[in-house]
């Protein structure tokens, strides 16, 4: 806190404040001489005629320094010094022995008794003054140090208090939701919020389990601040039945707005749909997601396809999710890079391959999670690393608690398939301004209430609409998106072409029919582009994957019927859902 210079200048003030010196000597003349000498220097002098008086005086008021004779009646200087040094709690009272004794042993005894310095009588005035000054300087720097130590320890205490309060506040918002479900096992540090890790889980109205693992850059409050909106958005939107794509889009937009450049949130968001026995995943910046099956071991590793949250502007953000069918008894593992990077005392890292080795297909799947944690703690062996370790296992079996779903269903709209249709025509100006997908999806949900189909319907609509706009009207080549570099180029090009668009339209027509016990959603999209040779496309779509996302093959698996018509500038897809009474 203070440099050498400021200590010096403070010491000058210190001198002027009439520092007090206690003179202890049984010889009255000696006391008089010292009193006269030091009073002239500006010190405030008090006197004691023996050791006992000195001790008593110190009990009353502590002097800044003591000049102590050795041989005195009642109590000698050694004993008085021992008692005075024993009584001091905070303050440092320097004691200088003034003694007629000159033998080495007596002088050493002064120091042994607790004296700080000694001077033999008769003394040289200048030396005495110098010693007093040196001792007072030492006392001063000791008191400055003591003050700083007190401030630091107060500060630490206060910080600890604040962290506890903050933790309570945060845990109200960033709560664990449905993490205690029987099909979930997890580990996360109780103070994780200040390590930047978060783990959220909730059931959607349709009975899907949503889990989010987030890992903010940095530590402390700046990491915790981002966690608040993420948690609010996650729990709010899952409860309302929004899809993963909607949720990550919203989270990214909010984080982009509030986080300074360089801070972001790596994360993955997973939806496990027990009814369709499938998972949808969006992930960016976190290690590969592991899917384990007892008969196959690691069955699938899902790579993160995205840039972490809070980096990209909403218009370049990729909200598309990957969908995979699941098998009964599949287990999904999400984990932060803290697991991979856990260090042992020798500085080695746990690493992906050690983690992968835990997933042996012969091991008991019910203890797999414990095996992973065991292997990790064996590796770090005593080095406390669990603070940065966040990991969750989701057992993907169809049976789970349906209470929340039932409650929602009673409140939801009638799901009886109805007959209706809507049409939306967008001209060039509208295409620049409006994203019709949320509007159309929301309308379908409002009328039919088939919230469990939201993500699928959105996926079909989004793919068909972006094909019409990006390829049909803007003339972009989807091959660009197959490489990571091209991906960025694609979006730059798209923005430019869209800005320059003067002519063109996309017509979207949605019809819904009740057919037997099913609802049938017919999506027809027509664009003003010149179309393409779709005969080849209708048969072979296998190349249309990679960075261009789910592509047409996915649409075909989601829809009952799918075909291009006209010049290839029109497309019809039929999505079917079953009505269960």
């Amino acid at each position, binding site marked *: 806190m203070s440099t050498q210079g400021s200590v010096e200048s403070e010491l000058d003030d210190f001198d002027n404040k009439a520092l007090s010196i206690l003179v202890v000597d049984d010889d009255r003349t000696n006391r008089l001489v010292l009193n006269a000498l030091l009073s002239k220097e500006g010190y405030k002098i008090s006197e004691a005629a023996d050791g006992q008086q000195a001790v008593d005086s110190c009990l009353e008021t502590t002097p800044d320094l003591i000049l102590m004779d050795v041989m005195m009646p009642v109590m000698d200087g050694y004993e008085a010094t021992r008692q005075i040094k024993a009584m001091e709690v905070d303050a440092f009272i320097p004691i200088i022995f003034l003694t007629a004794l000159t033998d080495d042993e007596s002088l050493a005894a002064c120091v042994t008794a607790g004296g700080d310095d000694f001077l033999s009588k008769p003394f040289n005035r200048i030396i005495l003054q110098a010693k007093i000054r040196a001792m007072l300087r030492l006392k001063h720097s000791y008191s400055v140090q003591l003050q700083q130590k007190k401030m630091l320890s107060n500060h630490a205490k206060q910080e600890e208090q604040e962290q506890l309060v903050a933790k309570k506040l945060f845990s109200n918002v960033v709560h664990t939701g449905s993490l205690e479900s029987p099909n979930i096992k997890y580990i996360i540090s109780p103070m994780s919020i200040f390590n930047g890790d978060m783990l959220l889980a909730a059931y959607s109205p349709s009975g899907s389990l949503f889990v989010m693992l987030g*890992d903010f850059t*940095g530590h402390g409050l700046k990491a915790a601040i981002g966690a608040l909106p993420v948690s609010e958005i996650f729990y709010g939107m899952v409860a309302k039945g929004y899809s993963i794509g909607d949720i990550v889009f919203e989270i990214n937009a909010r984080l982009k707005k509030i986080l300074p450049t*360089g801070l972001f949130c790596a994360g993955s968001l997973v939806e496990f749909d027990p009814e369709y026995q499938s998972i949808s995943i969006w992930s*960016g*910046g976190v290690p590969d997601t592991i899917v384990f099956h007892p008969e196959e071991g690691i069955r699938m590793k899902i790579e993160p396809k995205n*840039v972490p949250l809070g980096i*990209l502007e909403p218009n370049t953000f990729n909200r598309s999710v990957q969908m995979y069918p699941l098998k009964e008894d599949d287990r999904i593992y999400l984990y932060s*890079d803290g697991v991979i990077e856990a260090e042992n005392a020798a500085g080695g890292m746990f690493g992906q391959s050690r983690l992968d080795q835990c997933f042996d297909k012969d091991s008991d799947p019910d203890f797999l999670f414990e095996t992973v944690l065991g292997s990790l703690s064996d590796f770090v062996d005593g080095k406390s690393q669990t603070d940065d370790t966040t990991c969750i296992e989701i057992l993907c079996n169809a049976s789970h608690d349906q209470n929340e779903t039932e409650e929602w269903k009673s409140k939801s709209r009638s799901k009886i398939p109805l007959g209706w249709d809507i049409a939306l025509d967008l001209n060039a100006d509208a295409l620049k301004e409006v994203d019709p997908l949320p509007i159309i999806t929301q309308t379908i949900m409002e009328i039919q209430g088939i919230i469990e189909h939201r993500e699928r319907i959105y996926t079909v609509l989004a793919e068909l609409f972006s094909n019409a706009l990006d390829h049909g009207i803007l003339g972009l080549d989807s091959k660009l998106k197959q490489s990571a570099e091209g*991906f*960025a180029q694609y979006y730059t090009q798209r923005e430019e072409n869209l800005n320059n668009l003067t002519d063109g339209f996309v017509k979207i027509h949605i019809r819904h029919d009740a057919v037997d016990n099913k609802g049938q959603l017919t999506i027809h999209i027509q664009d003003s582009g010149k179309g393409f040779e779709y005969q080849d496309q209708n048969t072979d779509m296998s190349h249309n994957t990679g960075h261009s996302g789910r592509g047409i093959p996915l649409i075909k698996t989601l829809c009952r019927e799918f075909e291009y018509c006209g010049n290839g500038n029109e497309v019809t897809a039929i999505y079917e859902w079953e009505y269960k009474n």
Partner: protein
Amino acid sequence: MILVESSDDSPAITLSVSGNFDFSVMMSFQDAFNQGQANFSQFIVDLDGVDYMDSSALGMLLQLKEFAGNVPVTIKTSKKDVLEILRISNFAQMFTVVS
């Protein structure tokens, strides 16, 4: 440690990072690219000498990209661990990565 290289005959400025690329070098990394005021046509970040890199390093790269504006930023590395971090975070979607 951050080493900045630029020469009159080359329009690129190269930031070579060695040792730990983490929070501890944040100040010197920022100082290094802030020197790049002149008319450079490219930033090259050479990460071949990096032993360890964490997410704050990714944050620094994002800050550099913001500073660079339209000037392209190329990340050069053949280090396996570094490439793995860049893969997971999909930074190739925003930077040119040369290995």
